[in-house]
């Protein structure tokens, strides 16, 4: 302190600052121009710089896209300067010729109504979900997040099903039993410690086989009947409905019963409409998919699949159980630390090696798995932020009421947390939508991939084809991303309504 007293303080103003004129309120355009553009010499200079910048960017762009553009034609010569008679801007006939490729890729022309139907259904289900005032949000969300993906798969890919719940669970159970037994057999052949564990596993596998025996027998009986899918569906519906009725209690069970029956009627309607029991629609291999279709499929699947992964990881990261917490942290940090393109290569080249040899998995499917894991790790951090924002009192009040951990989380904490982080989630969806363009590096022809393929066409190689293609594709990307970001802003605005004064 004495040190300070001995030196003259430097940062103390010695003189009075001259009075400034009071701010003048000048409304209207003229006022804005005078106040915010021309109120000081520096500002005038900045305005001039800004005008020059605009002049050198906006004017050539407009001139290129609209004024100098060629609007009709059939091949490259129409887009050359000597034919058009003036310097040529955008070559729109190129976009017209390639339009269906940009949207559908190589999807066979007679089947394209299926893609249109999926796009229309998606828009129809998504719109009321986005409008805050529209009713029946739960039903709408259920339809969009669960029913729509399944329907879209059978519409886009085609093909039917062989069985239903009973067949699937029997297959799964016998698969697990086989794997455990196989591991046991291999280990038993190894060293002394291995043989003990191996014997135990072998026993476990045998027990599993015995346990799954009734289900397997039922499956075989169903498959041998004349209508395996319908019989299986009926049995699954009866079993699940009875289970739900018993679990919710007889007194409250009627509502759950109605819901379950409704869901199964819906499934039956879908099976009947798409003739899934008789092979369904003709199969269109995913290699034929392309353009905006792939972009939308990858991004929507990524969004839908990454949400549960994200929620699970976020809860795992906050769990008090040490190993689950450590695993979640490691998982999140790993996926967030590597570039998405390495994840795609991982999915394309490494994943097939990890699967059993007789089990092939579609290229698009592999990439979807990679993207879902990657986006899940990012979503987990966003959701964790929301979970941290919920006051502890909420969870404490819930446990004071006697709710279990799962009920506290599912009914009290998570709904509030997710509401908090909608803007953050939308931001991560925008990032995901943009990142889907990376699938073009692993030989999937999304919108960007189709654009690059279109450039290789010699029929349309002109000096301006490249710029035209980029302008058109860029516009599509921009409309989607900008729309999403505006939507997230409006949600943020609405959620923060109570904070405004």
């Amino acid at each position, binding site marked *: 302190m004495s040190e300070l007293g001995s*030196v*003259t*303080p*430097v*940062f*103390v*103003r010695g003189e009075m*600052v001259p009075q400034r004129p009071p701010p003048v309120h000048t409304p209207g355009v003229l006022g*804005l121009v005078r106040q*915010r*553009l021309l109120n000081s010499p520096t*500002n005038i200079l*900045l*305005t001039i710089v*800004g005008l020059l910048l*605009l002049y050198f960017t906006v004017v050539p762009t407009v001139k290129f896209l609209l004024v100098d553009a060629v609007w009709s034609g059939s091949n490259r010569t129409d887009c050359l300067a000597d034919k058009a008679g003036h310097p040529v801007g955008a070559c729109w006939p190129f976009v017209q010729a390639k339009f269906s490729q940009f949207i559908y890729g190589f999807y066979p022309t007679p089947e394209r109504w299926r893609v249109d139907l999926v796009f229309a259904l998606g828009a129809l289900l998504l719109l009321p979900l986005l409008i805050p005032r529209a009713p029946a949000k739960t039903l709408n969300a259920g339809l969009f997040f669960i029913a729509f993906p399944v329907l879209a798969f059978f519409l886009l890919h085609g093909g039917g099903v062989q069985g239903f719940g009973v067949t699937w669970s029997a297959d799964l159970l016998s698969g697990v039993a086989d*794997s*455990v037994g196989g*591991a046991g057999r291999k280990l038993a052949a190894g060293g002394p410690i291995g043989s003990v564990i191996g014997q135990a596993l072998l026993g476990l596998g045998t027990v599993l086989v015995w346990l799954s025996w009734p289900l397997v027998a039922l499956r075989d009986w169903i498959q041998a009947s004349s209508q395996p899918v319908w019989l299986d569906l009926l049995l699954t519906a009866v079993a699940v409905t009875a289970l739900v009725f018993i679990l919710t209690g007889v007194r409250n069970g009627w509502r759950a019963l109605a819901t379950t029956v409704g869901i199964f009627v819906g499934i039956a309607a879908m099976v009947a409409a798409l003739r899934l029991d008789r092979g369904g629609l003709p199969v269109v291999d995913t290699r034929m998919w392309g353009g905006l279709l792939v972009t939308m499929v990858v991004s929507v699947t990524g969004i839908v699949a990454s949400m549960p992964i994200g929620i699970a990881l976020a809860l795992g990261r906050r*769990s*008090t*159980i040490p*190993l*689950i917490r450590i*695993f979640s942290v490691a998982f999140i*940090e*790993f996926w*967030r*630390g*590597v*570039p*998405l393109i*390495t994840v795609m*290569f991982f999915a394309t*080249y*490494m994943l097939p*090696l*990890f699967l*059993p*040899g007789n089990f092939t998995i579609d290229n698009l499917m592999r990439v979807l798995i990679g993207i879902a894991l990657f986006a899940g790790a990012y979503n987990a951090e966003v959701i964790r932020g929301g979970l941290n924002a919920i006051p502890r009192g909420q969870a404490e009040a819930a446990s004071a009421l006697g709710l279990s*951990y799962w009920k506290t989380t599912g009914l009290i904490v998570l709904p509030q947390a997710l509401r908090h982080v909608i803007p953050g989630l939308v931001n991560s969806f*925008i990032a995901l939508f*943009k*990142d*889907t*363009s*990376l699938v*073009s*590096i692993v030989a999937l022809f999304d919108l*960007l991939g189709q654009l690059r393929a279109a450039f290789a066409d010699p029929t349309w190689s002109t*000096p301006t084809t*490249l*710029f035209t293609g*980029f302008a058109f*594709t*860029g516009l599509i*990307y*921009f409309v989607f*991303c900008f729309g999403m*970001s505006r939507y997230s802003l409006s949600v943020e605005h609405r959620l923060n309504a109570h904070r405004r004064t």
Partner: protein
Amino acid sequence: MAIDARPPPPQLVAKLRRALGGRSGWKGLLAQVLFVAALFWIGYEIVDNARDNLANQRIASGFAFMSHTAGFGVSQTLIPYQESDSYTRVFLVGLINTLVVSVVGIFFATVIGFAVALARLSPNWLISRIGGGYVEIVRNLPLLFQILFWYLAVLGSLPSPRQSVSVMDSFFLSNRGIVVPRLAGEAGLDGFLVALLIAVAAAIVLPLYARRRLFATGKPMRVWPWVLGLLIGLPLIAFLIVGKPFSLEVPVLRGFNFVGGSRIAPEFVALTLALSTYTAAFIAEVVRAGILSVHKGQMEAGASLGLSRGQTLRLIVIPQAMRVILPPLTNQYLNLTKNSSLAVAIGYPDLFSVFAGTTLSQTGQAIEVIAITMGVYLLISLVTSALMSLYGWRINRSMGA
């Protein structure tokens, strides 16, 4: 019905429950055991399947391939490299290329990002709108789209070397990239470099000294004339003593390409341009949020102390904004580094392109190659974020927070 007082639980058992299963106790322990068992099972299945599949495809696992001859050329190398070198060398070449493009990209992204942020905060309506428009447009287009745009559309439509755009007949811009004069070292280079090194070191130490003196005595010290003098003067003196330390090798067009000078490949230019403009849009938002987070009263307090606007910004506002800016800025730097792997789309030989691309397709060693690549990116990420959090910790400490 009276509730009997329950005896307190035995301490040892309670502690054990807690240690093994967290707050959920024995249930948590059971969950952990099941979880580990499931993980082991999945891990076993993966290893087992991988072993079978590799045996079927006759691929030897292991890292022996790293010492085999690569046998392919790399278009841009900063360390000596020949086709007869090993895959380890290829890996190093790619890693260095990745680091170079990241560092250059981070530099330009920071500069552009701060400029755009200041533009958005400018009192001038037009300038702030232009800044906003830049951010909106660049942020809402995929990065790969922008890289391809710069590479295919902009740089691809540049003239061939014979018609290249030249500045002062020594800088040439063509579709083969940018050709610039190269500095070739001569006899007195060492002395000159030593002088330069001393000057740079002094330029770093002097502000630190001035700051310490300011805190100790309260006397401000004008640093920049000294720094400028040192930076220009010392090399100049060295130049006069040792004589001309290097000569300028000006590129000349001969035949269809340039001879002499050094060439910056168009892939590098496109990648750096796209990465830095794209990341700059995000950095601009980060910086803007940071500056807006500092209360207006701080600016007014600075003015009332008699500081100029620049001094207030530099001494009061920016240090406080830095605390808010730094963590997200680190994330942006990391994103840029990770995004540099998109170089594979245009063939710039970065780590991902030469290693996970060419090496993987030549050797077929998918597991090893992808594991190494992911590991390197992970390491870069972890080291960068560790360094940045160290820096953030120091800032917080120095501000007494």
